[in-house]
């Protein structure tokens, strides 16, 4: 039975952490950043499989976009080499731009989908890109709301 929360604030005040699930990396295609889409059994009662898989697939697509090696990345690499890589000190790299998009996406997912179900996704960059950590909350008292938007937004302020 999914516990109902109205907003992230309520979850923060009235929920207690029950468990954490870790989605591991999928190394089948090498060292590029990709997470397993296998649905963990602990989440079976909390969220629909399709929603979870959509989230993970979108994250994987974002990371693939960040790490894509194509014409643009060659140009950037050559330009960086020609300037003795000093442009890395001045410019925001493409990866960093995509990471900001990912942080925003995770915050959005938390607010819309996961927090109402008493779950919270932690941005993988906070865990060294090793795992997607999903915290499972149990409602302690009355129905509360989910909080975590502030913490997620705090995590994006790097």
């Amino acid at each position: 039975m999914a516990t109902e929360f109205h907003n992230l604030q309520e979850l923060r005040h009235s929920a207690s952490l029950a468990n954490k699930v870790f989605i591991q990396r999928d190394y089948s295609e090498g060292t590029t950043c990709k997470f397993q889409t296998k649905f963990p059994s602990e989440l079976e009662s909390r969220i629909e499989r399709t929603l979870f898989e959509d989230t993970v697939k979108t994250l994987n697509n974002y990371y693939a976009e960040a790490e894509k090696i194509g014409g643009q990345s060659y140009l950037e690499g050559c330009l960086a080499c020609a300037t003795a890589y000093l442009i890395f000190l001045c410019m925001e790299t493409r990866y960093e731009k995509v990471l900001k998009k990912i942080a925003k996406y995770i915050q959005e997912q938390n607010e819309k989908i996961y927090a109402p179900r008493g779950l919270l996704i932690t941005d993988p960059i906070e865990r060294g890109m090793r795992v997607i950590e999903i915290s499972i909350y149990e409602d302690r008292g009355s129905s509360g709301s989910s909080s975590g938007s502030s913490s997620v937004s705090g995590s994006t302020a790097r």
Partner: protein
Amino acid sequence: MKNCEYQQIDPQALPTPTPTPPPHHGKDTEKKKEPRRPRRKWEVFPGKNRFYCDGRIIVARQSGVLPLTLGLILVTSGLFFIFDCPFLVKHLTSCIPVIGGVLFVFVLITLLQTSFTDPGILPRATPDEAADIEKQIARLRSLCFGFDNTGNTSYRPPPRTKEVLINQQVVKLKYCFTCKMFRPPRTSHCSLCDNCVERFDHHCPWVGNCVGKRNYRFFYTFIVSLSFLTAFIFGCVTTHLALRAQGGKGLVFALQESPGRYPSFTAVELVICFFSVWSILGLSGFHTYLVASNLTTNEDIKGSWSGKSGEDVTNPYSQKNIFINCCSVLCAPMPPSLIDRRGFLPTDESAQTGSADIELPNLAAKSEINVCTQGTKGLLESAALSPLLSTSCPQGKPQNSHSCPETSSALNSDPTSEFSKGCRGNHTSSSHGDTSHPRHTKARSKKCKREALHIPNPAFDVPVSPTSPDAAPDSKAGSHKGGSLTPLH
């Protein structure tokens, strides 16, 4: 409630519970009142690194021979510009100092970037993650035991390894006891820096840092431009002497002809460049081969993909095309630093770590802090904000024994291979990149002996049970890290 007491004392803190007992906390606030500034994450970093410029610059604990490298480059280039350039500009062309200048600047910048950039350090696993992995390992082992008991022959993998299939190639992932996680592919734990580094190439004492995923391109550009620079200076000095000898009565006369100070300096330049050219060119050639086949020094030395074991192994990371390999190694998007050196710790967190650093641990307080961080209000912040929240508490816990730093290096899952790797890696870079075998073995045995002395307990070499190596060494490693961090700033 302790929450309220804390909030009364420190209204600036986040509204999260940090139940330190009042007298203890009062002492803390007295000490902490002065540096009320929030602490940055680099200040509680568990590895053996040093940080400068408020976390912007990271170097290994031992700077190695980086000063020597810098000195050699500066001295040789300086002598070149002062003594050779004027003559060559007069007799040849004025492009020479320009080319020399560009190369010199290139070399210097890439050297500093290699030395001061995070090589791709992986942050250590949070306690929750580590516990989850332990559960996985225990589950796998119980399955294996089940098979054995029924009498069926089944392959039982050695403990603490995981096998994954990468591009149809089986790759074994090892468990790192220090970082409490299964190392991703191509990641290795550097015993000198006490960090797991992604795409670990080697630890280079000449640049005083590990060479890994994030700074490999800087390192490669450095050695290539340095080989051009040394070859250029060598050529110019030889031309200079040849031109002088032509005009005069021979080489010796040319050396003596100039005012007194010239000959010795020219000779110095010649000697340095002569030896450097061969070694640096050799190293550049070796790394060009590595880049073209998408290998790391580590893998090449260990022979991971050369099929030495007789199996049909190929490098699963290679794209089978030299150009694509070069591009993916050198022109890939720059990955971000995962350790977030300059991020701030939450203020309640910095107070806890501060108290841990300052005085002997009040174990009751520490356990309360640990409980509190698993508690209610602080939970979301701690869960989402800072992985170091969990790592710093165990750091602070048993600080009564500042045990020797060598213990932490013994925590690697495979200490002998780690050390031999570190040795070979060290040696590869320290012997001017000369890969000839006699020099290899001599320096390697020296370094390996030195490293081997650091392992107090070779028992860690044996496959270990889940509890014993983690419990005791963890505390020692934690205490060492806690102890080693205080002198940082």
